[in-house]
């Protein structure tokens, strides 16, 4: 079981060059829960995740882990607590599944130690959780998109961190694989207590899989809370600028947003 951590951001401002994409966002990541950051394109949700996961330095504000500034924690030590799967990692050509997953062990190895029994166990465990054990000796190039994504998540799992950030882990995947990946991440959270923070595109999958939602609009955090409380037609209108109806998802009981376009709306004529 993982430990409980207090990961928080205080009034962070971040962005690129002169454009500040994130404006004074303060938040506390709920420990041992699944949090999802939602928002429209270019609202800064990816930048927020990058800033939290130390890929982008905030221009001002503090990000702390258990009261310590993350910029002051030695990078390898931090990498044993906070893991990260960015949006478009590079696959070295010809690399095998086991080799790639094994690279997640880097922060646990010292210059001289080499591979220990613990490392092999962690890699085997990560591959088992992601159901890729039988693919271990395959080349990544031979795998489907869904399998590849499972391999990448397994690499992040091999890192054995208590907190895991994922930037759109389901992008470019068919709906079947999206659900599969989100189910596996939920397994991880329920069984190991891993704190998961991710950016997702799909509001309904977010509402179903998140324990906690952070909604961004134009770089500002406008609403946060449990999906049942915060996902309303007003919020969807607010962040996406889309008229919709929110019903109870008959499968999961979570909120489900049904968009209203200009056509195909019962009893109404198109404008």
């Amino acid at each position, binding site marked *: 079981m993982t430990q409980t951590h207090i990961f928080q951001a205080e009034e962070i401002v971040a962005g*690129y*060059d002169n454009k500040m994409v994130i404006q004074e966002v303060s938040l506390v990541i709920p420990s041992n829960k699944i949090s999802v950051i939602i928002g429209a394109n270019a609202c800064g949700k990816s930048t927020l995740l990058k800033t939290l996961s130390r890929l982008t330095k905030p221009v001002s504000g503090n990000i702390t882990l258990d009261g310590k500034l993350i910029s002051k924690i030695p990078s*390898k030590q*931090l990498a044993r607590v*906070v*893991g990260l799967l*960015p949006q478009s990692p590079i696959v*070295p050509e*010809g690399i095998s599944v086991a080799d790639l997953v094994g690279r997640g062990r880097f922060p646990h190895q010292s210059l001289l130690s080499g591979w220990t029994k613990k490392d092999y166990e962690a890699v085997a465990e990560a591959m088992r959780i992601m159901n890729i054990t039988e693919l271990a000796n395959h080349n990544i190039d031979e795998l489907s998109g869904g399998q590849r994504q499972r391999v990448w998540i397994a690499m992040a799992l091999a890192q054995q961190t208590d907190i895991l950030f994922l930037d759109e882990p389901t992008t470019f995947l068919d709906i079947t694989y999206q659900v599969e990946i989100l189910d596996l991440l939920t397994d991880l959270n329920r069984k190991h207590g891993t704190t998961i923070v991710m950016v997702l595109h799909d509001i309904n999958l977010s509402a179903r899989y998140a324990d906690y939602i952070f909604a961004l609009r134009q770089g500002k955090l406008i609403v946060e809370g449990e999906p049942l409380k915060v996902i309303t037609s007003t919020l969807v209108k607010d962040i996406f600028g889309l008229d919709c109806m929110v019903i109870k998802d008959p499968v999961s009981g979570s909120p489900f947003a049904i968009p209203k376009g200009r056509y195909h709306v019962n009893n109404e004529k198109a404008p």
Partner: protein
Amino acid sequence: MVLVICFVLLGLCMLTSLAFGSRMVGLHDVIDGLFHPAADSYEANVVRKRISRTVFSLLCGAALGVSGALMQAVTRNPIADPSILGVNTGASLFVVCGIAFLNISTANQYIWLALAGAAITALFVFGIGSLGRSGATPIKLVLAGAATSAALSSLVMAIMIPRSYVMDQFRFWQVGSVGSANWDNISTFTPFLLIGILVAIFSAPALNALALGDDVATGLGVRTGTLRLIAALGAVLLCGSATALAGPIGFVGLLSTHVMRLILGPDLRFVIPMSALSGAIILTVSDVLGRLIGSPGELEVGVVTAFIGAPILILLTMKLKVRSL
């Protein structure tokens, strides 16, 4: 397995390098020259002369092989070689300046100039490549290296062309040769080689993480900027010192790393040390070939590596998909 084959090849290389040359000697003479200091035949002395040359070409090849592997890992560019960071040109410029303005003519003086030139150029290229918010990305490093290299080589020409004596001296160095190596050169060179190879071996796990992209590497706790700097300095040390003593020898770094990657896969913990072996083999074989082809004189090894290196690399690229980083 690969290791055993490499060592057998290495042994064969050493033997042929001792035996073959403008003057052929038999195995018997090689043994005499190596193990019987009393033997005083002409052939035994020829063999003794070739020992330093062989040792130097092995070390130099190892340095170039590891340097190539490091540079490819740092820039995440499979066709990176010492010339990509502008290191060769920087070294050349300093050597030319030394010849032209300081009247320098021995290899042991070249080495410091070439190293300084290589290091300053690498730092300069690294500095330019790191400008901007995203830091030293591979593409920016490659561009900065190419631009710097072009600027520096025109400087080299500008200094050299009006001075014919510089040209003569420089041209021999520029082609690349291990023939003039003596034990002094080797002892000057060895510390650089050792430090460089240690740097390479210790940074291999972090470079493995870097191969997955800067973001993943950062997530794994790698300080990408620091790692690039250290690994690039290691590469500079290796290739700068090799270049100083033997002149710019191309293709060895490129070829040795690619061959190893094709055989061993992308794990740099194996590719880096094995590139030292393959580099040593390739350079020594090239040197032997140069002596055979050029007989009764000899062909400088830089010419030979270019001649075998280029077509083999093209073949490799076409036949087997060259594994990128």
